[in-house]
């Protein structure tokens, strides 16, 4: 009995269950439970994959690349569920969400998890598209959960922009299928990634190039690549914080995953064309642009959650750049970066949620003296930001180290904008962080009940990854690197 | 280094101490006669010192340990510096102990404590004097180092005795660098020993004084030691100018006749230098304090030119 159905369908079942449960107190616990089961299932799956190599069942296919993302997704989902239980309780107690809203929230949380896991584990590019679109649909109502004008506006923008983006991706998928039809006889297999990958060199380069543009713009909207990123800060800042945590930690990753999968096909097809590195250059260009622009955006922030969502754009840009750069070192670094960025960013959002509750607002100007008010939250935020800014011994440093040295090795001139971008982004983050965590406590600011366990676990893991990458993970990542870059690193 | 060498060194060091007031007296005497006065005896500084040693020393309530120790440190550091400069002979083991950079360092040590002593009592005068002294020396010290570096680089040694030996051995080459260095060093010496036009040792006018302001609070034996140290410093610079730039006549061995000759020659040279100083002090007027940087910048410029002309004109080419 394979763990795969459990992985994918536990959240779906959970979503149906939660949609029918009327007691919010139970819902929180069930949410945690379902997430935990999913996580365990992914672990089992990971062991299976580690033993067998690749697991392919009908339209599902789990290899080294997506298995670690599956585990990561389920893990972040679980810790976020743990965090969201008391958090949403607090939100409900303050009257921002009613009972129906809570039901919607829990059901949609699991639906979102389902779409994420489906998108990651499927082999069919069409299903991938459906799942990513489904993720938008599942989260869009959560963004407007608080029903404030801002929240509704954010949700609308999120919906429209991602809808358009994803529609363009569908057009790309159609073109891909069109190209595949000349090569693959079986129409049902025409969208199977593994089948396409096997025949990639025969796919017609001009169609593939065109398709990739559509796919990149489409999925790139979801990744948050500049200039299609505008929905991202809005949706992150106005939705409930657990939502922001999973959006930043998971959804962006999945979209990037999709782009990388497609890039592998395009690279195979374009290998003999006049522009063999088209996809790579496009990714590098978008990545660098996002990275630099988001870094500058950080300087002008007034809302704490918006700030960290720009930081997500920045990091997604960096990863996109790294995947575009190609080569085993950069790819390994990018894979590692996906991992540590998810863990760190979701931890930061959790902390930010608490911080916003402490101050009663998300406005940076009014969040003050966190270390004095509630040391765990203050230090959590400080260390989390230090980690995301790329300070060792946290794992983000390791991946940035690999990225920078890979850049230096292959495209030394790109190191200059990277350096500038890192410095600018760093300055942008810390100039706002400083007054928030340090200094005197404003009148009447009180600690709030906070569950810092997820933060501690996430940051602990990131720290561990910074100090040493355990052997099994290194092997996973290396196999994924081999898959993507063609050459293993180790 | 032989026992005799060390004995000679000690003797020469004592000679410095003994001769120092004489030079001061001589300058005063010459100055007086230039001003058509009779002036006190040449030996008057000795009498002053004796008188001061006999007097009771007084200290302000606010003065601390530094104030009391400073005269001794100043005197000893100056003396030690002097002891490394060949006076009558170049066979001097102390010159190996302290080369020219150490001499400058020792003088700086003396100045450091002098300035601290000035600030110790906590009066405005002391602070003012210390500030000005450190200001002047900050500009004078590099000039002095540059000047001696010119010599040192020519002789490939910072050991003053070796420098003098090198001078004596070599043919009499006319070196432009020496000219610059000499001119610069003269200016430095004037500034460092507190002579006109930078400072006036004979006045207690607050707008102008530097050295006197620092030792204003001293009395009795402390003042005696301070005065003596100042005289010693004057002698030191005199000997430096006289023996390093015009070394002829200095004893190159330890044989008594040569030593006697050396002593006579150096006394003669110092007498000429002292007279020249007296003349210049009579002719020149004291400058405003903020003209002093120009004066010292000139010194620094001269010495730097000296060094540059050495490395460019005399080594390479």
């Amino acid at each position, binding site marked *: 009995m394979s763990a795969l159905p459990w992985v994918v369908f536990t959240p779906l079942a959970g979503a149906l269950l939660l949609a029918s449960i009327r007691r919010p107190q139970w819902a929180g616990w069930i949410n945690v439970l379902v997430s935990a089961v999913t996580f365990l299932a992914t672990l089992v799956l990971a062991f299976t994959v580690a033993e067998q190599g690749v697991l392919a069942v009908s*339209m599902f296919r789990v290899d080294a690349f997506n298995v670690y993302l599956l585990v990561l997704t389920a893990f972040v989902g679980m810790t976020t569920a743990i965090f969201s239980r008391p958090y949403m309780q607090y939100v409900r107690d303050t009257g921002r969400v009613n009972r129906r809203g809570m039901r919607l929230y829990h059901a949609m949380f699991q639906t979102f998890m389902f779409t994420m896991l489906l998108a990651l584990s499927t082999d*069919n590019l*069409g*299903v991938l*598209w*459906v799942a990513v*679109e*489904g993720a938008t*649909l599942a989260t*869009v*109502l959560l963004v*407007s959960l608080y*029903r*404030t*004008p*801002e929240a*509704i*506006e*954010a*949700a*609308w*923008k999120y*919906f*429209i922009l991602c*809808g*358009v983006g994803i*529609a*363009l991706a*569908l*057009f790309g*998928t*159609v*073109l891909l*299928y*069109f190209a595949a*039809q000349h090569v693959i006889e079986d*129409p*049902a297999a*025409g*969208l199977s990634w593994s089948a396409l990958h096997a025949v990639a060199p025969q796919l*017609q380069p*001009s*169609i593939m190039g*065109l398709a990739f543009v559509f796919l990149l713009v489409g999925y790139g909207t979801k990744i948050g690549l500049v200039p299609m990123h505008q929905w991202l*800060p*809005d949706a992150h*800042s*106005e939705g409930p914080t657990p939502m922001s945590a999973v959006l930043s930690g998971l959804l962006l990753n999945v979209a990037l995953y999709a782009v990388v999968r497609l890039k592998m096909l395009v690279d195979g097809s374009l290998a003999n064309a006049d522009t063999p590195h088209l996809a790579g250059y496009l990714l590098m260009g978008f990545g660098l642009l996002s990275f630099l622009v988001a870094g500058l*955006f950080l300087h*002008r*922030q*007034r809302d704490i959650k918006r700030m960290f969502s720009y930081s997500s754009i920045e990091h997604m840009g960096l990863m996109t750049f790294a995947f575009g750069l190609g080569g085993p070192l950069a790819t390994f670094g990018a894979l590692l970066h996906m991992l540590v960025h998810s863990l760190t960013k979701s931890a930061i959002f959790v902390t930010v949620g608490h911080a916003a509750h402490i101050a009663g607002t998300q406005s940076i100007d009014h969040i003050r003296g966190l270390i004095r008010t509630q040391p765990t939250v203050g230090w959590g935020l400080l260390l989390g930001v230090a980690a995301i800014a790329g300070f060792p011994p946290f794992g983000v440093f390791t991946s940035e180290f690999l990225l920078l040295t890979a850049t230096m090795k292959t495209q030394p001139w790109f190191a200059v904008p990277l350096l500038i971008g890192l410095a600018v982004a760093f300055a942008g983050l810390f100039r706002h962080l400083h007054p928030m965590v340090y200094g005197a406590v404003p009148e009447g600011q009180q600690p709030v009940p906070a569950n810092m366990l997820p933060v501690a676990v996430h940051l602990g893991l990131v720290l561990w990854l910074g100090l040493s990458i355990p052997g099994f993970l290194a092997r996973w990542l290396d196999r994924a690197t081999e898959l993507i870059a063609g050459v293993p690193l180790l | 280094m032989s026992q005799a060498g060390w004995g000679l060194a000690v003797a020469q060091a004592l000679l410095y101490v003994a001769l120092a007031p004489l030079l001061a007296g001589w300058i005063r005497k010459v100055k007086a006669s230039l001003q058509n006065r009779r002036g006190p005896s040449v030996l008057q500084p000795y009498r002053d010192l004796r008188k001061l040693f006999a007097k009771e020393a007084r200290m302000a309530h606010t003065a601390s340990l530094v104030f009391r120790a400073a005269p001794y440190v100043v005197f000893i550091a100056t003396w030690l510096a002097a002891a490394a400069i060949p006076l009558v002979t170049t066979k001097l083991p102390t010159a190996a102990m302290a080369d020219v950079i150490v001499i400058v360092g020792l003088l700086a040590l003396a100045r450091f404590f002098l300035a601290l002593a000035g600030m110790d009592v906590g009066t405005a005068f002391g602070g003012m004097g210390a500030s000005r002294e450190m200001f002047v020396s900050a500009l004078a010290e590099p000039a002095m180092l540059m000047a001696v570096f010119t010599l040192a680089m020519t002789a490939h040694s910072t050991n003053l005795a070796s420098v003098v030996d090198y001078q004596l051995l070599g043919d009499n080459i006319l070196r432009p660098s020496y000219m610059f260095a000499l001119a610069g060093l003269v200016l430095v010496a004037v500034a460092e020993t507190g002579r006109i036009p930078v400072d006036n040792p004979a006045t207690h006018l607050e707008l102008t004084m530097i050295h006197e302001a620092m030792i204003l609070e001293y009395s009795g034996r402390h003042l005696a030691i301070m005065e003596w140290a100042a005289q010693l410093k004057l002698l030191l610079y005199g000997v430096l100018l006289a023996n390093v730039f015009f070394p002829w006549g200095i004893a190159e061995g330890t044989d008594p006749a040569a030593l006697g000759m050396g002593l006579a020659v150096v006394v003669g040279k110092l007498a000429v230098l002292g007279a020249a100083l007296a003349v210049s002090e009579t002719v020149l007027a004291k400058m405003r304090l903020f003209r002093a940087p120009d004066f010292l910048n000139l010194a620094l410029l001269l010495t730097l030119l000296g060094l540059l002309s050495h490395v460019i004109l005399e080594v390479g080419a």
Partner: protein
Amino acid sequence: MSLEQLPLLQQLMLVLAAVVLFTSFALLEQARLVAAIHAFAWQGVLVAMVTAIVAASGGLAHLFFSAALTLALKALLIPWMLHRLVRRLELDRHREPLRRPALVVMGALALVIFSYWLVLPLVQQELLFTRNIVAVSLAVVLIGLLMMVIRTQAVAQVLGFMSMENGLFLAAVSATGGMPLVVELGVAFDVLVAMILFGVFFFQISESIDSLDVDRMTRLTERAEDDS
């Protein structure tokens, strides 16, 4: 290869595709919302017809199902829902004339030409038919996007979005003979859910800003007041 050499069915399809393109222009130009919804419904009907023709010519059974699905969804259900929403939101008399119609039409035409230019080198060895139909569907997609850019009315934006979907579907059906069934079902489901959500949002938006003018939703911006 020229038009005369094509089989009749394909000629018919090209005609229909051209009409689809025309409905796109009609959508773009239409000032009255209700009329636009009608234009959209007609577009859906045309797409369904194309699907049915492809199914008939290729003997692809599952495309008949797709055609029925499209007809039900795009030509009936969604227009009906939009109609109802417009009536409930009291927008049935709403008119929103284009500000610079000539410029917009020129832009749309440029997009059409651009689409052709783009597709031209793609399929040189392929059938003329496929090339043209891909170009038309690409143009429909781009015009839909253009419509979303220029229309300030939320309902009109949704219409633009839905017409993009039509273009996509047209491309999928005509160029590739339809996507695998599971994908098509998924897409259809997503479109349906999206439509429901759009409906929800219309109410939320009009509740919150008392209008459906998207230009009035500019609270979330990075521009500070001081340096606008």
